[in-house]
């Protein structure tokens, strides 16, 4: 066991999302390929959160997400030789996770149970026109300590169509770059930007009534005028 791994296990083995230096990650990959298979746990530890959240974002179910995230990591372990090092290990692992979660989703025929009010189920064409103009200013991050706020955000995310949710999760929750997101999902960077814009606007639209509080404080427009014209 390496000194870093040893230190971590002594500290209780809590997963750290801090990425390993690229050179060290490559060294680990090489050593694992040469037979030091137990080092895979160290390689994958910084990506555990990403894998779980990605699976959760697609499946929207904690039990399924746990299972699929584990399966994805084990599959990546078993097929490590297929990773050619053209991208970062985490990007490849994310792609494996997305494929695994999509497969599970198809297998369980969840598609037929999509909510009727799923946001953005149409194509990417056409501009999204905001409908709610609540003056949603600064929301302190401390509000996330409140479970009802987190539940509200999770519910809003779940209401997005899958293609927007995947892009949003990788870009804004996992903080992947546009290029990494495109590579992980298998779409072009341009499509990532288009879907990201729509996802962000749809979420804002979806959350504005709750967090923007326009029920009590709607913006007043002049009578007879249409907004955005």
């Amino acid at each position, binding site marked *: 066991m390496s000194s870093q791994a040893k230190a971590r296990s002594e500290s209780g083995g809590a997963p750290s999302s801090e990425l390993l230096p690229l050179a060290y990650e490559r060294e680990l990959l090489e050593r694992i390929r040469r037979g030091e298979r137990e080092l895979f746990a160290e390689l994958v530890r910084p990506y555990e959160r990403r894998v779980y959240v990605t699976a959760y974002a697609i499946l929207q179910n904690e039990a399924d997400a746990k299972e699929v995230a*584990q399966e994805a990591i084990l599959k990546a372990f078993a097929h490590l030789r297929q990773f050619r090092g053209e991208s970062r290990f985490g990007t490849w692992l994310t792609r494996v996770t997305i494929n695994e979660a999509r497969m599970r989703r198809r297998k369980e025929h969840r598609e037929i149970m999509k909510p009727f009010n799923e946001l953005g189920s149409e194509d990417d064409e056409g501009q999204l026109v905001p409908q709610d103009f609540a003056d949603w200013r600064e929301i302190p991050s401390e509000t996330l300590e409140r479970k009802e706020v987190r539940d509200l955000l999770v519910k809003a995310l779940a209401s997005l169509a899958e293609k927007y949710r995947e892009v949003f999760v990788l870009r804004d929750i996992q903080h992947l770059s546009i290029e990494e997101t495109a590579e992980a999902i298998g779409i072009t960077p341009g499509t990532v930007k288009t879907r990201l814009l729509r996802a962000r606007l749809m979420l804002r639209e979806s959350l504005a009534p709750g967090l923007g509080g326009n029920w009590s404080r709607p913006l007043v427009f002049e009578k007879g005028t249409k907004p955005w014209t």
Partner: protein
Amino acid sequence: MDLKCEEVWREISNYIDGEVQARLRADIDHHVTVCKKCAAVLAGTRNVVQLYGDVRMFEIPAEFSPALHRRLLLQARPERGAAYTWILSLAGAGLAAAAMIVFSLPRFAVPALRAPMSEPALRAPVANLVVVSDDGKTFHVPGCTFIHGKSRMMPVEEAMREGYNPCIRCEAELIRRLEKNRASSQLRRSERDELDSGD
């Protein structure tokens, strides 16, 4: 340049990510100072990015990591298991080789056939003429009582090529005749030699 609200919405995501040209950024900055609606949309979209990007937003279930590492540990073991498999397969190959040696011992060898007639036609001279019948499956020494139906003569070699087997009754006679002929020819040869040397 005065921007339309639609242009601001179209670029709002790139604006937040800092991926717009300086000129466009300045135009958007100016627009949101005079347009409350776009200012609200920009602030709300920023909040979305900030809130969802917060590490507290999604928490990994406490048991996820330990369960995963238990499974990883199990999966890391097959490499050692593979060594055992290799040893087992080597042992299996050794056993197979030993079995082959044992079964090749004389005790297990197939015994030779005892009756001469059990090895039909092995000693029959291929050039000798034999009799075959059209409705039979065997060839015979001329005069064999087992010849039935219309018959014809042919060399042993040809009879065997056509699929005839030797008659077990007269084959012994065939061989006996062959040996008799061989013995008489040897006798004649020795008499001739004696006569030649007497001269």
